[in-house]
């Protein structure tokens, strides 16, 4: 008999996320991977500033809360101090791709042996729905009320594509969690990203295309459809860099 159970790496604290938010799914995938790899006791997670700011309450491993955007620098410090431990950051688009872009790019360039889970939902959720670096052209937010005008505030940033131009990173993949098939693929990618670190391969970043029904002003179901129709065409899923695989070929 299969019993649906909570992964050990998640605490019993009930999450504060909005109905239909996919953070819960992504948290669970990370926790399942930690369980399956048997690394909870040596894992240290870094929480960001943003909707997942309180991730430190939800994961059972040791957790550190970082300043906005600085999680990769904090993770660098932890990993340099404890190279045998497993260190991951969990960051949103504002945190990773706006205020923390320098930390993101440079930790990738250094090929820090860390794992980054990057949740891209194209909006600032915690502060109530402002334009993010990944907000789509024409997308309406609180600070782009007439739709994102690319002539005025530029284009969305494609993080995986950009980081793939660097020699540093080991593994870059974009996944989504809008349907069962994609969730399964997302878990596989997250597992690889942690496995890479355990094997000492270096910097792995998984970008998870996510949804924000509350701030997108949609029902959860509609939001998932919008991910399929709008987000994924702009942010194509797939592996953007896999150095080890390339070297094997």
């Amino acid at each position, binding site marked *: 008999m299969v019993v649906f159970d909570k992964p050990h790496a998640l*605490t019993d604290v009930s999450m504060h996320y909005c109905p239909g938010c996919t953070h819960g799914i992504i948290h669970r995938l990370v926790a399942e991977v930690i369980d399956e790899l048997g690394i*909870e*006791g*040596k*894992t*240290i997670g*870094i929480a960001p500033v943003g909707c997942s*700011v*309180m991730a*430190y*309450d939800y*994961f*059972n*491993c*040791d*957790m*550190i*809360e*970082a*300043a906005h955007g*600085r999680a990769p*620098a*904090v*993770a*660098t*410090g*932890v*990993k*340099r*101090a*404890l190279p045998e*431990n497993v260190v991951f950051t969990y960051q949103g688009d504002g945190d990773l791709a706006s205020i923390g872009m*320098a*930390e993101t*790019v*440079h930790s990738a360039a250094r090929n820090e042996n860390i794992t980054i889970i990057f949740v891209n939902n194209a909006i600032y959720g915690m502060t109530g729905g402002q334009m993010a670096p990944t907000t789509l052209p024409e997308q309406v937010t609180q600070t782009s009320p007439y739709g994102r005008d690319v002539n005025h505030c530029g284009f969305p940033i494609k993080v995986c594509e950009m980081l793939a131009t660097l020699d540093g990173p080991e593994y870059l993949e974009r996944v989504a969690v809008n349907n069962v098939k994609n969730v399964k693929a997302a878990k596989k990618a997250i597992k690889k990203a942690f496995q890479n670190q355990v094997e000492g391969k270096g910097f792995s970043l998984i970008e998870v295309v996510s949804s924000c029904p509350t701030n997108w002003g949609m029902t959860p179901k509609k939001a998932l459809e919008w991910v399929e129709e709008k987000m994924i065409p702009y942010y194509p899923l797939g592996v953007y860099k896999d150095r080890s695989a390339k070297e094997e070929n």
Partner: protein
Amino acid sequence: MKGNEAIAEAAIIAGCRHYFGYPITPQTEIAAYMAKRMPKIGGCFLQAESEIAAINMVYGVAATGKRVMTSSSSPGISLKGEGISYLAGADLPSLIVNVQRGGPGLGGIQPSQSDYFQATKGTAHGDFHMLVLAPASVQEMADLTVKGFELADKYRMTAMVLADGTMGQMMEPVSLDYEVKNTVEKPWATTGTNMEREHNIVNSLFLSPEKLEEENFKRYDRYKLIEENETMYEEYMMEDAEICVSAFGIASRVAKNAINEAREMGIKVGLIRPITLWPFPKAPFKKAGEKVKSIISVELSMGQMIEDIRLASECKVPVTLCNRAGGMIPTPEQVLEAIINANNGGAK
């Protein structure tokens, strides 16, 4: 040994094996020294992409409970402010060195003490203090670095060595013979649960105001202990002094020259040299306020420490400023003139 090098070697002796920094004059020798030494002793020197990244790397190492440091000069410390506030909020020990240069803005690269306010009061947002240690010799650059690590661990807070370009660049003999205390238990450190304990959380977010207030009260209870037990200062010829000169760091060296000359002229003048700028040594100034005719604050700034002197001496006697700014250093002659002026009846 150069002052900057003395700091770096003392840090290594104190057990610091992680250094993160970004080049900026006049403290770059610290980074260069660390870059050379750390790989040879199994430590980690990493040049960060920015001051901001460096201080957050410090935060990461500090969370694991290991001794860690960064160093910079004034504009770089401004950038580190954010990280310092988070270190304070999460009660993490660390050591930061500021080899001050003139400001504001890009300022200059010559020595200054114009980050006194920044170090003792306005480092960044929120209710917190750093322990601020002000060396006045190359020997003290080393001594206070070791002391800084020990106090940081003991009180779970950031210690800052507040030097200036002169202190960093000058060479003096230095003895590095220490019995280093590195025994503070850190059960709060995030080192992995090993599945043997509840998870540790290093955090400065407290959305409940009651809880945040409680955290702040607890921190300030600790600060009170520090004020009672860790305040350091030097008194020089204060026993019979009628004029009190006050200065820290390089300014105190200049002031001592002037005091020696004034004593030869028969003027009864002494020096109070704060060694901890926070906690500020209030007691000797309170005492001075009750017995001297006036106090002269010698500073390489537009007058910052003078405010604390006025408060500590309870405004009982006039406190005047003898200063240079922007990278200039007062001469002993300038200080002597201020002493003579004060002796002749004080304010002009």
